């Protein structure tokens, strides 16, 4: 068996496969199928300072090889996360990534500050949620705003800080460089792409929010391209995600430059996807005589 361990921005992951925020809750629902310790890590449901109800339903629409969602960061607030979820997650032998978001720079910083000393291993600052009116993608679509929110959160936390980037921009590498310059320890990408579906009979958008974030296999080539561009532009490590569905996708994403990967929408059809992806990658490494998964990071041979 190859060595699947990854040291990502100073955090130990026993394998490079992480469950993506918003697709896996806090892990409780999947423990009926397998122990969470099979995963390298979990990026928990996006947490805000106060409880949020999210958007009205329908919040999901199927698309060719993917889906749109417009959940809108429904969550119980950071105090509930700290009191009710972190103690349970700490027993699971898994890297815990606290995904945080806020309507203002100050709110993001306050959530991050509250997580100091709670035992979470890493912060993933979401500056790219397409489903909220304030904050969210507004932070992630200009270098100035991305810098400002990264700076505030950097000052509020000693934990490794990863910034989750929006693909809904002209030049994602410039945003990555901006957050790197403000002290981000890593970046993760891509969040969902803004999309829309319409019921042709009712002439109504399927999502009550009209628009939502596209994820699933359909976005994978875009994600690979963006991870490749960002990995070539920054020195900090990249956690790659966006449509990873099979172990081959996982290898491909790491060749593009991701030091670790997140699996999201694929879990809905196949709850075992993250486990199968980690196992499949391991077998491929063995077959190719590669001793350590980290050896393949960024090893694409571009023309």
């Amino acid at each position, binding site marked *: 068996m190859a060595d699947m361990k990854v040291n990502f921005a100073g955090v130990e992951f026993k394998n490079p496969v992480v469950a993506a925020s918003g*697709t896996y809750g806090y892990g409780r629902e999947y423990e009926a*199928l397998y122990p969470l310790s099979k995963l390298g890590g979990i990026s928990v449901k996006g947490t805000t300072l106060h409880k949020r109800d999210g958007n009205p339903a329908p*919040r999901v629409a199927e698309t060719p090889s993917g889906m749109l969602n417009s959940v809108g960061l*429904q969550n119980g607030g950071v105090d509930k996360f700290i009191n009710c979820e972190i103690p349970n997650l700490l027993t699971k032998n898994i890297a815990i990534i606290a995904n945080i978001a806020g309507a203002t720079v100050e709110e993001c910083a306050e959530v991050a500050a509250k997580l100091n000393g709670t035992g979470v291993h890493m912060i993933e600052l979401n500056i790219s949620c397409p489903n909220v009116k304030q904050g969210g993608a507004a932070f992630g679509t200009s270098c100035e705003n991305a810098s400002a929110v990264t700076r505030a959160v950097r000052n509020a936390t000693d934990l490794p800080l990863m910034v989750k980037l929006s693909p809904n921009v002209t030049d994602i590498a410039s945003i990555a460089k901006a957050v790197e310059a403000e002290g981000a320890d890593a970046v993760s990408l891509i969040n969902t792409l803004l999309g829309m579906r319409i019921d042709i009979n009712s002439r109504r958008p*399927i999502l009550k929010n009209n628009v939502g974030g596209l994820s699933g296999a359909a976005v994978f080539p875009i994600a690979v391209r963006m991870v490749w561009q960002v990995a070539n532009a920054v020195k900090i490590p990249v956690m790659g995600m966006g449509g990873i569905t099979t172990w081959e996708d996982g290898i491909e994403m790491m060749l593009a430059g991701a030091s670790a990967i997140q699996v999201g*929408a694929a*879990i*809905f059809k196949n709850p075992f996807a993250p486990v199968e992806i980690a196992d499949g990658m391991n077998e491929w490494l063995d077959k190719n005589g590669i001793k350590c998964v980290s050896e393949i990071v960024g090893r694409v041979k571009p023309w």
Partner: protein
Amino acid sequence: MNYFQGKYKIVKKLKLNDTVYDFTLSCKEITDIALAGQFVHIAVDGFSLRRPISICEINREKGWLRIVFEVRGKGTEALSKLCEGDLMDVIGPLGKGFDLLKPGKKCIAIGGGIGTPPMLEVAKHYGANCTVISGFRTGSIAILQEDFADTGAKTILCTDDGSAGRKGFVTEALEECLNSEKPDIICACGPMPMLKAIVELAKNAGIRTQVSLEQRMACGVGACLVCACRCVKDGEEFMAHVCKDGPVFEAEEVVF
């Protein structure tokens, strides 16, 4: 929470009318723990999301699970093409089912259209103490009437056009039932306007009511939070989720 994911053999397939199919799966591990009103989440080749389908009948002895579903789009159409002997990729049983009261208690079970299948397990539980009211647009799409009769329950069939059973909505039949004898509980599944009308009648009569709701889902297990439904408890409104908090809810907790 306890559920399984697996590929289970289709042991029986029936076509009940132009758009409604009746599949029986051999999945003992699921039937061992499945309850009335729960659902299963079914993968379809070529589609990125599973389809949530309510459980119609649980045969624990044989380990057979029966689902009855309507072809609504391309996904359910593809599902309907599966044949006896094929495998179906199922996650289940999922969600919160109906609260089944002690034998001897009386129940009115109401199903509208494709909301009728989950009422079969309810009828089986209460037997002769159950009245099943089912409603359809027209007689040619009425389903499961013999199954309901076989449970010993009293059955009342309503059609909008009067082509089978009595003409009119299930609410009219319910009103008559409530005038003659009050049940201990009402269980209902069907379109939202129908549920809303039933809940109003039941509330006036002071009868506990449980409703089974439907919403577009992704994970089916309570992790992704897409299948939101507005509920109220102790005066406070919140977003519950149909897959995990439901599909069966106490009617008084649902904000219609």
